[in-house]
C-alpha cells in the first residue's frame, strides 16, 4: 500500500466521521431542554409571539426536515442564522470573525506544549534517575494535575496583577497584529498548554527510555556509531513516533481548553461563542461551532497521521 492510498483512506475516514458527527451534533442539541423562542423572547412572551418566532426560524418543522435544511445549507456554505446571540446575523460571518482567534490560541498552545515537552522529556530521559529527571518529571505531574482554569487565575495573579507584564483580559486578533496576539495570547495559551505539556513530556520520556533498550540500539553501538548519532537517528527518531501519535490523541483537550479559557481571558473566539450559544439555545451557533471543532480535531489528527506515516514506514509499506 503506497502513501497516496494511505492518504485517501484516511481522508475518506475523516469525511465519514464528520458526516456522522454532524448527525450527532444535531440530535444532541435537540436533546438539550429549553426553548430558543423563550430564550430569545423572554419568559413573558405571548403564545402568538412564540409561535411566530418558531415559524420564522423553521422550528415548527419536523426534526428530519430541520436537519435536512441545516445540512443542505452547510453544503452551500450557509450555516444558518443566529437566533438569539446576534439575532438574524449569519452564523458563518460570526465564525469568520472568531475562528482566527481560537485557531491562533489553539496552535499557540500546541506549539508551547510541544516545545516544553520536547525539552523536558528529552532531559528527563537522557538524565534518567538524576536531579534533572526528577525535576522534569515532577513538573510534568504538576502540569497534568493543575486544572487549566485554576492555572489561568494563578497566571493572571502573577503575571498581570503581580508583575504587570502581560494583560489579564482581552485579545488582539492575529489578523490585526500578530505580535500583539502573541503577547496577549501568552497567558491563555500557556494555561491550555501546561497540562498537555505534562502528558507529552511523560510520553516522550517513556518512549525514549523504551527505545533506548531496543536491540537495534545495541546493534547501532556495535557498529561503533557515535553516541550522538545513535541518539538522534535510532533512539530519538523512533521515540518520535509514539510522541507524535499522542499529540494527535490529545488535541481534543485543546478544544475543551479553549472553551473555558476564552471565557476567563475574554477572548472573542469560537469557544466562548459556543458557550454563549448554548445558554441562549442558539442551535445554529452551537451546531456550527461543534462542527468547526470536529473538523479542527480531525484535521489535526489527519496531519498527525501523515507525519506518523512519514516517521514510521511500517504504517504505509
Amino acid at each position: 500500500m503506497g502513501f497516496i492510498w494511505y492518504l485517501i483512506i484516511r481522508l475518506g475516514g475523516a469525511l465519514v466521521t464528520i458526516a456522522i458527527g454532524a448527525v450527532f451534533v444535531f440530535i444532541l442539541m435537540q436533546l438539550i431542554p429549553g426553548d430558543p423562542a423563550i430564550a430569545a423572547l423572554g419568559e413573558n412572551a405571548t403564545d402568538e409571539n412564540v409561535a411566530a418566532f418558531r415559524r420564522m426560524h423553521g422550528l415548527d418543522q419536523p426534526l428530519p426536515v430541520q436537519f435536512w435544511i441545516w445540512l443542505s445549507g452547510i453544503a452551500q456554505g450557509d450555516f444558518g442564522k443566529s437566533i438569539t446571540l446576534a439575532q438574524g446575523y449569519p452564523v458563518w460571518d460570526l465564525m469568520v470573525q472568531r475562528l482566527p482567534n481560537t485557531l491562533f490560541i489553539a496552535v499557540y498552545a500546541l506549539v508551547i506544549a510541544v516545545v516544553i515537552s520536547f525539552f523536558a522529556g528529552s532531559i528527563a530521559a537522557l538524565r534518567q534517575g538524576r536531579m534533572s529527571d526528577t525535576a522534569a518529571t515532577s513538573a510534568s505531574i504538576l502540569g497534568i494535575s493543575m486544572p487549566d482554569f485554576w492555572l489561568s487565575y494563578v497566571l493572571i495573579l502573577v503575571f498581570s496583577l503581580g508583575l504587570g507584564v502581560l494583560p489579564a483580559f482581552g485579545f488582539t486578533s492575529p489578523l490585526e497584529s500578530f505580535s500583539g496576539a502573541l503577547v496577549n495570547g501568552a497567558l491563555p495559551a500557556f494555561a491550555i498548554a501546561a497540562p498537555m505539556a505534562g502528558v507529552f513530556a511523560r510520553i516522550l520520556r517513556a518512549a525514549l527510555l523504551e527505545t533506548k533498550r531496543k536491540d537495534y540500539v545495541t546493534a547501532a553501538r556495535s557498529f561503533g556509531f557515535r553516541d550522538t548519532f545513535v541518539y538522534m537517528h535510532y533512539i530519538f527518531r523512533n521515540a518520535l513516533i509514539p510522541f507524535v501519535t499522542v499529540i494527535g490523541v490529545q488535541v481534543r483537550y485543546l478544544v475543551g481548553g479553549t472553551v473555558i479559557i476564552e471565557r476567563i481571558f475574554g477572548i472573542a473566539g469560537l469557544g466562548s461563542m459556543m458557550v454563549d450559544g448554548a445558554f441562549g439555545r442558539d442551535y445554529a451557533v452551537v451546531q456550527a461551532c461543534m462542527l468547526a471543532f470536529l473538523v479542527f480535531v480531525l484535521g489535526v489528527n489527519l496531519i498527525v497521521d501523515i507525519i506518523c506515516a512519514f516517521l514510521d514506514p511500517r504504517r504505509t509499506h
Partner: protein
Amino acid sequence: MTDTPARNDDVALRIRGLNAGFRMSDGYLPIIEDVNLEVRKGEVLGIIGESGSGKTVTGMSILHLLPENAETKWEKFDFLNRDVTGMDEEAFRALRGNHMAVVFQDPTGAFNPAKKVGWHFHQVFERTAVKSPDHAQRAKDWRNAAINLMRDVGIAHGENVLGQYPHQLSGGMLQRALIALVLAFEPDLILADEPTTNLDNIVERQILDLFRDLQKRLDSAFIFITHDMTIAATLCDRIAVMYAGRIVELGATREIFDDPKHPYTQGLLATALALEVKSGERLQEIPGELPHPGDLPPGCVFAPRCPHVFGRCEVERPPLFDLPGREVRCLLYEDDDVSGR
C-alpha cells in the same frame, strides 16, 4: 594454555579474569566469573552452554555492549596485542565496528525500523572510511560496494534490498544483510551470538554454510556462541563450555567431543548424542536445573547435578586445571594439572 604456544601476534583476543554482573534493585547480581579466553586470527572459538549460562553476557562484555546497569571487571584484556583493559569508552567505541563486530541472534531487531536497509549500508561504509584511503574511496561508491557484499552473502538482488525497509524483508534475508554489514567492516574479531536460532531449519543451514565459507576466506578471529552441539562441532576449532557463568571446559573441538572431561560436558554430549541417534532408549538428560546466578551452590556450581560429586565439591570452588591441551574446572582432574599449581 598448554597447547602449542601461539605466536604472540597471532592472538587477536586474550581475556583473563573477566567478571560481569548487574546492579539490580535488590543488590548486585553476579553473572559470569573468572572467564579466560583466547582467540587467534582465523580461528573459530565456540562458546556453548544452556541459555542462562552466561554466553551472551560474556560476548557482550567483550564489546562493552552490556546494558547500563552492568558492571565488568577484567584482570587483563588484550586486543590485537594492545592492552585495552582500562580503555575509556570513547576510545573503545572506535574499536567497535571497524575492529570488532557482532552478528546478533535476532536480525529483525538489529535494524533501525525507521530507515531503509540502504541507509544502514551507507552509514556503515561511512564508518569504515577512517580505516584507509581505499576504504574512504569505497565509502563514496557505497552502493556498488554494498551490492557486491550482498552478492557474497547470497543476496542476488542487492540493489532492490537497499531500497527496502527492514520489516519488508524476511529474517533470513535480514541475517544475510546483517552479515554483509559486519563484513563491510572487515573486523579483526567477529562475534556471532546464536545467529541462526530465530531462523527456520533450511535458512539456518544456509547461514551456517555461509559462516563456514566466510571463516575459510577471512583472517578474522571468530567467536561463535551457540547452545547447539552439532553446530559447534562442525564450525568451531576450539570450544569453551560454559555453565552457570563459568567456563568449565576448554579445548580443541575434536578432543572435547572424543574425550569430554568435565562431567557437565559429558552430560551435554550424551544428551546431544541421544537426540541425534533418536534411539529408542530413554533420553539421557542431566538431572536438575541450572542454578540461579543469585543463588549459587557454595562449592562447584555443577555439584548438585554432578554424578561424580564427592565431599570437597560441595565446599570448594574448583579453579581451571591445566591438562595437556585442555582446561577443566573440576576437582577430579586436580592431580592431572600440569601447570604446577
